[in-house]
């Protein structure tokens, strides 16, 4: 097991290993228990979509995975890091996990380029030159190379979310988390963001997505997990979940969203 305090080695080396292991995870806010014992594994390179009604605990589960929410009981293992262990340096864990938010959360006091170079220069101590060069490559990849010096508030929603993805990728994470990444977008901009996510999936990035885009989940997911009332009610391949749902809750949910 790598030393969590100093490790910058990859979370896992073996493609067959479960890079995320969630063991009987419970999370309460005060008296309100949101997650009531979640068990799940995600393999390296796997794309998992989490679906479920609002308030079911989808986003909370995702936020637990990179330590934005503390764990009440149970554990989450990211490779050799246990998030329930108080001695684990969360910043070390977060170097391996990128996150994209529903409302983009770009830094309005910085340019697009500065948004992307902030973490590599601050956390990885890259030189400005190296960080900027890599940032421009990432902007090219998401199709926004001409927006390097723009301010976030001058961008459209779709452009903002693509910058946010580039910003997360700049840390070269092994896992990407997407928290309803297209929910705040106008319909005509959803496609450009999904396109970027699709290309990441094709490159073999390990991803967990909370999404309302059922068609997209069906297309890119290796597995789909249905959460309701704080537990995973059902999971399996997209064909199985969407084509042959077994539980009444999932059938009910699908009948409302499809």
């Amino acid at each position, binding site marked *: 097991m790598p030393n969590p305090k100093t490790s910058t080695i990859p979370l896992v080396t073996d493609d067959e290993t479960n890079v995320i292991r969630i063991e009987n995870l419970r999370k309460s806010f005060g008296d309100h228990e949101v997650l009531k014992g979640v068990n799940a594994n995600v393999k390296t390179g796997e794309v998992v979509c989490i679906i479920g009604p609002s308030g079911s605990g989808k986003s909370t589960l995702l936020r637990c995975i990179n330590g934005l929410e503390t764990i009440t009981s149970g554990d989450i293992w990211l490779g050799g890091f246990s998030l329930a262990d108080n001695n684990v340096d969360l910043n070390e864990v*977060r*170097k391996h996990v990128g996150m994209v938010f529903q*409302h983009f*959360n*770009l*830094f309005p*006091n910085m340019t697009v380029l500065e948004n992307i170079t902030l973490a590599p220069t*601050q956390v990885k101590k890259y030189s400005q030159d190296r960080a900027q060069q890599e940032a421009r490559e990432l902007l090219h990849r998401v199709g926004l190379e001409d927006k390097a010096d723009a301010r976030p508030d001058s961008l459209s929603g779709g452009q903002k979310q693509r910058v946010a993805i580039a*910003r997360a990728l700049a*840390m070269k994470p092994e896992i990407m988390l997407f928290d309803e990444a297209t929910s705040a977008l106008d319909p005509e901009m959803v496609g450009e963001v999904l396109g970027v996510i699709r290309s990441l999936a094709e490159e073999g990035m390990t991803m967990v997505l909370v999404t309302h885009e059922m068609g997209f989940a069906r297309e890119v997911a290796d597995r789909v997990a249905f959460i309701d009332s704080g537990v995973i009610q059902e999971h399996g391949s997209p064909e199985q979940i969407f084509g042959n749902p077994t539980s009444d809750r999932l059938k009910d949910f699908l009948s409302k969203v499809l």
Partner: protein
Amino acid sequence: MRQGKTFLSFVFAGLIALLSFFMAPAALADNAAETEGGDPEGEVYVIGTDTTFAPFEFRDPAGELVGIDIDLMKAIAEDQGFRVEFRSMGFNAALQALSANQVDGVIAGAGITEERQEVYDFSDPYFTGELTIAAVEGSGISGWGDLEGESVAVKTGSLSEEWAREMQQDHDFEINALDQTTTMVESVKSGHDKALVDDLPIIAYGIQQGSGLELVSEPEPTGDYGFMVNKGENQELLAMFNEGLNNLQESGEYQEILDHYIGGESGPDPSTFLGLLATSIPALMVGLRNTLLITGISFAIAMALGLMFGFMKLSSNIILRGIATTFIAIFRGTPVLVWAFFFYFGLPQVLGTPISIWVAGALTLSLNGAAYIAEIVRGSVQSVDPGQAEAARSLALTQGQSMRKVVLPQAFKMMTPSLINQLVIMLKDSSLLLAIGFGELLYQAQQIYAANFRTTEVLLIVAAIYFVAIWLLTGLANYADRRVNK
């Protein structure tokens, strides 16, 4: 309890030592600290006096402190070979300063009363006081009998108030106790009071200066004026005063001084508004300089303390948060004036050492300002979208990095307008320091209209100076804001 007090003294002593270090240059620049009198090698005594008690003490158009008390004290110092340094601070403030040993003696046209003799030691009498009633010319009032049902202005805590209270037993009138002769005169001229009661020489001097009042009663002898020291302290100073006074009375110099002020040689100030402007501007500019200096120093300290307490209030540590909350509650929940009196008069008695008026003034303004700035800082940081910190944390930035690089730049941008507002409020609040005799702009104005009785015009000039100063200051601050927070 005892330990608590010692600890408090220790903390304050440290703070004050620090402030004194920063303020030494400012204090040296204060022209009020010149010593005057006899032998340049002689002992220096600090003498407290009233600000606006013409003709006993007031400032001439050049801004020099003059008057019967002042000239007499200087002549006695000359005769006896010691030196004096005057602090003009208002009558009640001077008495408090004497009790606090902030000054060695007080000469302020103070009547020798039994009450005061319990607390202070008086010299031989140097002037025999008389009280009189004055009203607007042609008012038809000729005595107490004409004041039934009216309001009468008296000077707070003085013999005039005592006399009026006595007369109240036979006549039915209201008493309006005010702090300064000029305020009393304005109160009568504006119709708030029908008449005023004050010392005869003071009213006579005012009439000579064109106050527009007339004497309407026979003078009432009140007793004698004396120079005073704290009970049991500075007895050698008291002895020198008595001996010097005796010498001057024998040589005739004493009478010369009296004639100079109440002999009726000078007339009302004949100058036009522009002439008044020209003569008062030098003194007002000294006041403006002091106002800007004390505001600048206080705001810098308030910013440092405000940031510190603001972050403490945001801390997850319950003790730090408690300290910050207490500090803010205390200084936001109490008037500035209370702290000015406390730091200048109260604290020296706790510490047993005098405190410079600059230190007391800066403590007052900066601690009050810090309480408000702490809340501005806390509010601004909290109003930054929590998603910003979450995004920074999810990029593996440490708490400190995320605060410095992401949250604070946005918080500062939001707090700038409130900080500019706070600066303006502090600049205006600095005028409250006139109550402890700090030579800021409004204080200088009082000195001027106390001598020439042109209250309204001088106040208009001062208001214009404040307005322009604040207008320029906000303009500058907004310009800086635009440059920094693009």
